[in-house]
């Protein structure tokens, strides 16, 4: 092996009966990285994590931790820390006993145990709850303790399975900040499972986007501007979809025409297009601008439309604009909107070539 990774998955597959839940999973994680598994419910995130944890055995492929093959090694010998969605603190033990449990199993001395438990409780900012029982803590506090418990043994790898999904929105933001800070400070290699893309973007160095047990894309948060597939693009946020064909392929640009006759230019991101290809065309609501008058004479990347509906959503507003057989959702800053748009008004929608995402359309017409 030329380079050593903390975690390596090689062609890992898992089936339940005939149902292939994880297929051909390949991933390498470096020391100290935080990798998110992102994907919709049922896509195999937990299953993959459970295989890394040793709760499930892969049907095919290899799992390596610190370069050692782990297939068949029981969980208790893998030296991992794990945080579960439901906290899973032992209800019959005090917080101190909960956190100290892993150390007790490792026969660490009493004094050393106390020192290390105190240290992690400090890290999660809950030094005063040691003598309490889990049911005397709030949800957020319990999850902090669960994190402390997972970190106290200084594991090779920290696994977090949707650790924030049982908490309310505000706590979720607070705690994810804290987990990020801890992770970066301690430098523990981490896998973070979530179905919330914002969380994934915030937390991790790299994101693995999963769909139906297949890896759709592995990339850094910035790679979201270069989605590898239609699925990744639509999963990471709302997007308007148009259908059309490729008219011309230029060096850096694609010229397109929608089925409703609108001409578009898009930045060309890869080589796989030819004139005449049927494509799906996406534009995010926040990358479309609205104007009362046409500002350029050019007839590309502009469409005339009628306001159908406006909704105020706090920091921003959303409008639905009918551009003839298609309705575009457009997102504006609320200050920008400020009441000048009203249903029935005629407007021009405009967008930039770099904000247009083009994907080959599958034959079955998705």
């Amino acid at each position, binding site marked *: 092996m030329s380079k050593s990774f903390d975690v390596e998955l090689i062609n890992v597959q898992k089936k339940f009966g005939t149902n292939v839940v994880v297929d051909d999973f390949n991933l390498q994680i470096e020391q100290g990285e935080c990798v998110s598994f992102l994907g919709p419910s049922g896509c195999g995130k937990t299953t993959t994590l459970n295989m890394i944890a040793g709760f499930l055995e892969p049907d095919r492929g290899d799992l390596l931790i610190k370069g050692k093959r782990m297939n068949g090694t029981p*969980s*208790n010998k893998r*030296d991992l820390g794990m945080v*579960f969605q439901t906290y*899973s603190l032992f209800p019959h033990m005090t917080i101190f006993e909960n956190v100290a449990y892993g150390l007790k199993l490792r026969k660490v001395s009493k004094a050393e145990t106390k020192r290390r438990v105190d240290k992690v409780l400090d890290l999660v900012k809950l030094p005063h709850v040691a003598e309490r029982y889990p049911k005397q803590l709030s949800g957020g506090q319990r999850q902090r303790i669960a994190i402390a418990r997972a970190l106290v*043994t200084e594991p090779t790898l920290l696994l977090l399975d949707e650790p924030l999904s049982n908490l309310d929105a505000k706590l979720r933001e607070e705690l994810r900040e804290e987990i990020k800070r801890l992770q970066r400070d301690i430098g523990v290699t981490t896998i973070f499972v979530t179905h919330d893309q914002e969380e994934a973007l915030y937390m991790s160095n790299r994101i693995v986007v999963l769909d139906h047990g297949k890896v759709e894309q592995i990339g850094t948060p910035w790679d979201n501007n270069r989605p590898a597939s239609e699925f990744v693009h639509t999963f990471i946020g709302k997007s308007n979809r148009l259908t059309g064909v490729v008219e011309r392929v230029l060096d850096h640009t694609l010229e397109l025409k929608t089925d409703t006759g609108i001409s578009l230019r898009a930045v060309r991101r890869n080589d796989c297009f030819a004139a005449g290809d049927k494509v799906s065309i996406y534009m995010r609501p926040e990358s479309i601008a609205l104007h009362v008058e046409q500002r350029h004479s050019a007839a590309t990347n502009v469409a005339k439309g009628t306001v159908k509906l406006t909704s105020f959503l706090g920091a921003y507003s959303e409008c639905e604009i009918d551009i003839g057989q298609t309705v575009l959702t457009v997102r504006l800053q609320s200050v920008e909107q400020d009441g000048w748009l009203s249903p029935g008004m005629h407007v021009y929608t405009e967008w930039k070539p770099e904000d247009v995402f083009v994907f080959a359309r599958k034959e079955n017409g998705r």
Partner: protein
Amino acid sequence: MSRKFSPLGIIAFIVVLFVISPLLVVIPTSLTSVKYLSFPPIGFSLQWYSKIWDRPEFVDSFLFSLELAALTAVIATLVGTMSGLALHKYRFRGSGTVNGLLLSPLTVPALIIGIAVLLFFTRIGLAGTFTGLLLAHVLISVPYVVRLVLTGLSSFDYTLERAAYIMGAKPLRVFIDITLPILKPAVMSGMIFAFLTSFDNVTVSLFLVSPTTTTLPLAIFSHMQESLDPLVASISALVILLSLVFIIILERVYGLDRLFGSNSHSH
């Protein structure tokens, strides 16, 4: 909503009184100074308590019952807890059927179980032995333990086991440190319930005791058929007090209302 003396409240009071009165009258009766049963009791004396010691068959059968019930409780709890775990944690094809089978002794009258076991044990040479009696008591107690353990497990969160496991605990450690303490209320209630089931039983014991050893309820039963004197009252009073201790523990640990599902408890 309920007023102090609603008609329903009065009826409920009367019925509750009806159900507990046979136990309530036993204690005053045991303090009577005359030789026959009467209520209200006549005079006051503790003679019927001291007379218990003159009757070795009651003392012996009491000790025998205690021993039998304790052994039954321990065995039934072990066997029942193991089955409960197998059925819930290692759920497999056909576990529903096995579950139904394990609970089936509850659906057949105790009298018929007693008869069947007597005739069968006579055939294989176990009738009248302590082992035979113990096995029969275990049989009628295990279903309760299984039921209680399954109820306990139904709210058990298996990720707790995983949490301990991944922290480095071996499977047996996980069971001892995590699973068992959390299941303790259910297992303990199962043990007490098994104890009381064995300690109270007459119908099955009736067919399986040997002429030399008998259980306390059976000794009382036989004595009552020959003569009715306040001696039975003093013994019964002691049994009631002992049972009360267990009943209160059971209520504290588990809650009596949860003990009684929809299954039968035969006599």
